[in-house]
């Protein structure tokens, strides 16, 4: 199998002195679907931000063999699509269309190709009729789906999601999980939603206090009740 992400000895300290990541080592293979679980403040978001070079620190992160550094940022950001937790951060353009087109336009596609990508991404999340709608007129569930479309339109190899089901009601949560299930790309999902992890993730990483505690198949991790309980994840 092809190693698609390689993280070696990654540590990160925020400018204010908070130690957010301590010596993380993690290999992710093509087609993996990884659930990253752990209590609030464990460092999940910080780790995700390293995957497409939003944060860069000592230690090494490689995506498709490319080291994540200033020089490779363009290529890396086309490969790794990151959906932020709060859809109001993800959707910053006035209309849904402009938001979904933002990534493809920056990738330098011509306008016909951009339109095709936007259409298929919106169709995928079942929001074709919302093209001209305005960001702040959408419901929370709709915003979440459009957020996913803003990344899908870039057709990344790796999809990185930060708490995709947080704050969604039961019905929309289910719909969203089904959407993710239908996608056959490498996925890395930080979440508190154990049921989602069980239904779509092949592997699970447990993080706590900036450290990677365990990384194994979903059955093994969920079989180990003591481990889960030790990190407040039962």
């Amino acid at each position: 199998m092809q190693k698609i992400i390689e993280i070696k000895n990654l540590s990160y300290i925020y400018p204010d002195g908070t130690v957010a990541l301590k010596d993380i080592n993690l290999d992710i293979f093509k087609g993996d679907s990884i659930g990253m679980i752990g209590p609030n403040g464990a460092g999940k978001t910080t780790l995700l931000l390293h995957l497409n070079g939003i944060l860069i620190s000592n230690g090494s992160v490689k995506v498709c063999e490319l080291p994540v550094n200033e020089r490779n940022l363009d290529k890396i950001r086309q490969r790794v699509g990151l959906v932020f937790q709060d859809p109001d951060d993800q959707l910053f353009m006035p209309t849904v269309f402009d938001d979904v087109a933002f990534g493809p336009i920056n990738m330098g596609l011509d306008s016909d190709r951009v339109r095709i990508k936007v259409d298929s991404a919106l169709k995928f999340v079942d929001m074709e009729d919302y093209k001209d709608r305005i960001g702040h007129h959408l419901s929370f569930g709709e915003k979440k789906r459009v957020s996913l479309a803003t990344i899908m339109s870039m057709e990344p190899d790796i999809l990185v999601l930060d708490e995709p089901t947080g704050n969604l009601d039961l019905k929309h949560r289910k719909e969203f999980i089904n959407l993710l299930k239908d996608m056959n790309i490498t996925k890395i999902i930080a979440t508190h939603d154990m049921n989602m992890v069980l239904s779509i993730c092949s592997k699970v990483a447990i993080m706590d206090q900036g450290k990677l505690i365990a990384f194994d198949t979903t059955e093994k991790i969920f079989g180990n009740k003591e481990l889960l309980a030790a990190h407040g994840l039962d």
Partner: protein
Amino acid sequence: MQHLYIDRYAGLDSFIHKIDPRIKVITFFIFILYIVLTNPFSYLSFLLYGLVILFLIAISRIPFPFIFKKTLAVIPFVVLIAVFVPFIKRGEVLASYTLGSLRIEFTREGIVLFWAIVIKSYLSILCMILLTSSIKFTSLLKSLEKLKIPKLFIMIASFMYRYSFLIIDEAQRMQRAKKSRAFKNKKGLSAVKMLSNIAGVLFVRSYERAERVYLAMCARGFQGEIKTLDTFSIVPRDIMFLVSIFATLLLIQFV
């Protein structure tokens, strides 16, 4: 939460709404130019301008009360500025009063200028409001961009449009949370304190949000310039609109 959108009626489907946004911006800009440059004594011209605007509002199917209510928000500022003009402008003195050591003079030129400011700004405001309420704000921004207004202004306006509601919501939630914990309605100094508290927290939160939004933009390949697709196309109807308004304005000059 409910907000008053400036482009609440932008979704209508009238002749005015269908005009290409760029053409509409240009047409109304010319219209305002004509209004501003008209001799203050051509009362008939102003009357005709007013009638043309009323006609345009009528075919736009935007309710008149909506438009006039909007003008009320601006007119006090105009009057506030204009009301001092008759006293300041030098010229033929019509009346003068002495208040102690202060001498106040009231000139004919001043009154003419006052009238000119009020009527011209009112008509211009009507034009602006008809323009902004018959065009989606997003299209307005895009057409301004196409008309070579600096990108920075467009970006600022677009973020204001996208996030001002969010900030208002946040402020309302905080105020509600504060109120639900305070038992009596605070007045005076403590109310000011509470308000400044809210303002402070809002500022910090907006600052943090701006940072996160910037990261989200970078994650999708942002490199210092927002690019959007051109979605406009000019059809004969647009040109006809521009030409007929222009012709009307010219005709009005000759009456």
